[in-house]
């Protein structure tokens, strides 16, 4: 339930953003992280960005995520 995943912000439209997470593009609400811009990385929970994350750290986290939560799921 507290699952949250890293995503890259592609485009911003008012209080929503188009983000990419593991090759899936989706729309999320960004009301909780005012001031973010395209190119930023965020952590997404239940359709909302809840925190900004550091780009380099994000790449590492995405690597772990891919390894453990997606590949291992098979």
């Amino acid at each position: 339930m507290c699952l949250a995943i890293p995503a890259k912000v592609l485009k911003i439209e008012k209080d929503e953003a188009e983000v990419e997470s593991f090759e899936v593009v989706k729309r999320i609400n960004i009301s909780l992280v005012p001031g973010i811009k395209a190119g930023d990385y965020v952590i997404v929970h239940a359709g909302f960005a809840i925190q900004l994350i550091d780009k380099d750290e994000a790449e590492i986290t995405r690597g772990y995520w891919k390894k453990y939560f997606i590949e291992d799921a098979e």
Partner: protein
Amino acid sequence: MKESSEQLIKKIRNSIEKISSENNGYHKDRTFRIMEVCGTHTMAIAHYQIPQLLPENINLISGPGCPVCVTAASDIDRIIEIIKTYNLTVFTFGDMMRVPGSASSLSLQKAEGRKIKICYSPLDSLEYAKENPGENIMFIAIGFETTAPLTAVLVKKAVSEKIKNFFIYSTHKIIPPALKALLEDREVKVDAFLLPGHVSAIIGVKPYDFISKIYNIPAVISGFEPESIIKSILMILNQVKEEKSGIQVEYKTVVKHEGNPFAVKQMEDVFEIKDSLWRGLGIIKDSGLELKKIFNNFDAKLSFSVKEIKSIELSGCECGNVLKGIKRPNDCAQFKRTCTPDNPLGPCMVSSEGTCAAYFKYYREN
């Protein structure tokens, strides 16, 4: 070159073994109980077999980290009574569907024809309300501080968009008072905490300060990969070894010291703190979030009043003790016999992040 996760885990294990063999504040012959309070940690620890990486005396205990699991039967009963009495369309997160009340569940109610829908994002419920002005929509708001800010945004949106057919039933709870209750409970023996990653992304470090300042217990905010969890355990042992406790952040990618103050402000704008009933732990002071009076129009508890219901907890279900970390799922007589994921008796088995569900899925007979 970044070392592989296997190498990193090996290094951390060696460090843990080293501390275990030294004569210091941490005694290798004494059971050392580390409690995690996050459903996602419960699952990660089980999935990656973290206990197998640790010396035998370190026990990883699961606490009340799953918001669905700590929802009291009386809340489920009241929600069901509201659904039966009023003609509502109800939205909830998937996990809530099979949580048992005294006599029924949302899933059973849906099977009987009630309009109950699962949403991934709370915003889905508001969208539906806008598109269906002839229906009254109730969103069951459940979750800790990771999710409460989302409900706050939802409420503010409903206000600004003047939605009249939308209502919220809040069962939100906050974590730090539960940690305090656990530390005060003589039956519960906790030597250290692994603190939740995403709750902490919102609230930051400060709300946990009392754990070290008053109780002198080490605590580390941990990420969810195996190397993060085991590194957090090493950080805890180092605190014991050096005889100083504090709240440390291992999950630095996401958890800033100050958390997300903007998200916290949304929660403070919309909710007030009240006492709350936690399944297994009883009433914990100042641990629940209720809508502020200015949002009375959106409060399902006020708009849809129902008679008082006598709730009964299922006999034989050890969820209460499991949630406190006093018993493990295997200590429950029903576990794997009459209580399975297909036929769950209590919320710890229902929720995908429940302790009993984790044990059922990942741990073999020991």
